């Protein structure tokens, strides 16, 4: 399993340039925002957490559709399906590798980008924490979509309908926890705990559903 994790990491580093790319991507997205909303620093610092979360969502979505499709196209998926190792475990490890390669760099880079957005320390810390806890959920949800997409050559429609609505709660609780940390009346813990619960829930459901979809898609 460690072999699979390392291979997937290696692949994403080789083919796309690795963690640097993730951070760069994030920086680029964040740099684009002020052009749109204007250089109003107050406004920027207010929408900062939301922007960071949207950037993270986008980064997770890009390339997610190829998670299993690339394996299927070169025949590796067939071999993986045949192994004794439970498929759920294989999917879980692939998700973790995907997150490590594309989600984690974002989490690590987020404080820097928080500075760009003129956010204060508490907001930065809270956003980073929620990102750390929340982004894996997006990967797990995405894995289900990717697995379903592999199943139905013409089912991409289903994927988007499946992935984004499920990702919205993650986004909402992530963003509201980050805000709660800054604005006094709202308590930080409840949305944060819900976020953790969502992530744990999808960490179980996601690989299970994805493995089932992969099995039923093989032909």
């Amino acid at each position, binding site marked *: 399993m460690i072999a699979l994790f390392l291979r997937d990491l290696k692949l994403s580093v*080789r*083919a*796309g*340039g690795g963690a*640097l*790319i993730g951070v*760069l991507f994030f*920086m*680029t997205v964040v*740099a684009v925002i*002020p*052009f749109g909303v*204007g*250089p109003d*620093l107050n406004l*920027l610092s207010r929408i900062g957490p939301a922007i960071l979360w949207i950037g993270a969502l986008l980064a997770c979505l890009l390339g997610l559709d190829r998670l299993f499709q690339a394996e299927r196209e070169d025949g590796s998926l067939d071999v993986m399906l045949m192994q004794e190792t439970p498929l759920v475990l294989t999917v879980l490890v692939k998700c973790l590798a995907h997150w490590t390669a594309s989600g984690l760099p974002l989490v690590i880079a987020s404080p820097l980008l928080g*500075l*760009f957005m*003129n956010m204060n320390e508490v907001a930065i810390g809270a956003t980073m924490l929620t990102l750390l806890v929340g982004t894996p959920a997006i990967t797990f949800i995405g894995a289900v979509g990717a697995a379903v997409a592999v199943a139905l050559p013409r089912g991409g429609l289903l994927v988007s309908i499946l992935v984004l609505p499920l990702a919205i709660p993650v986004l909402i609780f992530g963003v509201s926890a980050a805000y709660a940390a800054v604005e006094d009346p709202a308590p930080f813990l409840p949305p944060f705990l819900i976020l953790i619960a969502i992530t744990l829930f999808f960490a179980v459901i996601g690989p299970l559903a994805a493995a089932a979809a992969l099995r039923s898609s093989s032909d």
Partner: protein
Amino acid sequence: MSEQSLAIRKFSDLANPTRFIGLAERLLPWFSGLTALLFAVGLYLCFTTEGDYQQGETVRIMYVHVPAAWLSMMCYTVMALSALGTLVWRHPLADVSARAAAPIGACFTFLALVTGSLWGKPMWGAWWVWDARLTSVFVLFLMYLGLIALNRAMDDPGKAAKVSAILILVGFVNIPIIKFSVEWWNTLHQPASVLRLDGPAIDPEFLRPLLVMALAFTMLFLPCTSRPCATKSGAGG
């Protein structure tokens, strides 16, 4: 047509890799010495000229900031010329020099960004504002990093060179935007006062150290790019 190709052949003869290495090896020590000397003089001038009545001592940041900003743009311009060299004349040294220039350009841009924000805190009250000049320089920085990432991601050097040459040329639109952003949009940043069509409008007191520092930075750039050119073209054949 034939005249042109003859000229090109001559040009490539002059800059053929082995000759280039020889030349570079002979000149590099002199370059380094000269650069060191220029830096010494420049820094001396920087710290002996008196401060500005408005800005006080912070004006000295200018002596690093402005040359770094100039060179960040010049570096990209050199890369764009090299890119033309790669695409049009297919010169072997062109892509090596473009590749060598990218990290250096990124460094200069980074330096301009950092000194700019250091200067911005006392002058504007914020480390960073999203005005057109600042953002376009930031975009330049991102483009340098993107090019470096692209070069690292592609394993065939020949292909990487051509492909990034195309991208460099397309990205060149950013340079005029940086240069003229202060005139096209109303920004916080200073409009040009040295590199202007109607001559510099700056006190010679400040101009002198500035120009010396600029020259020193340029001299720093030359050996930085030509050394990798020499070694890489030597190794790559």
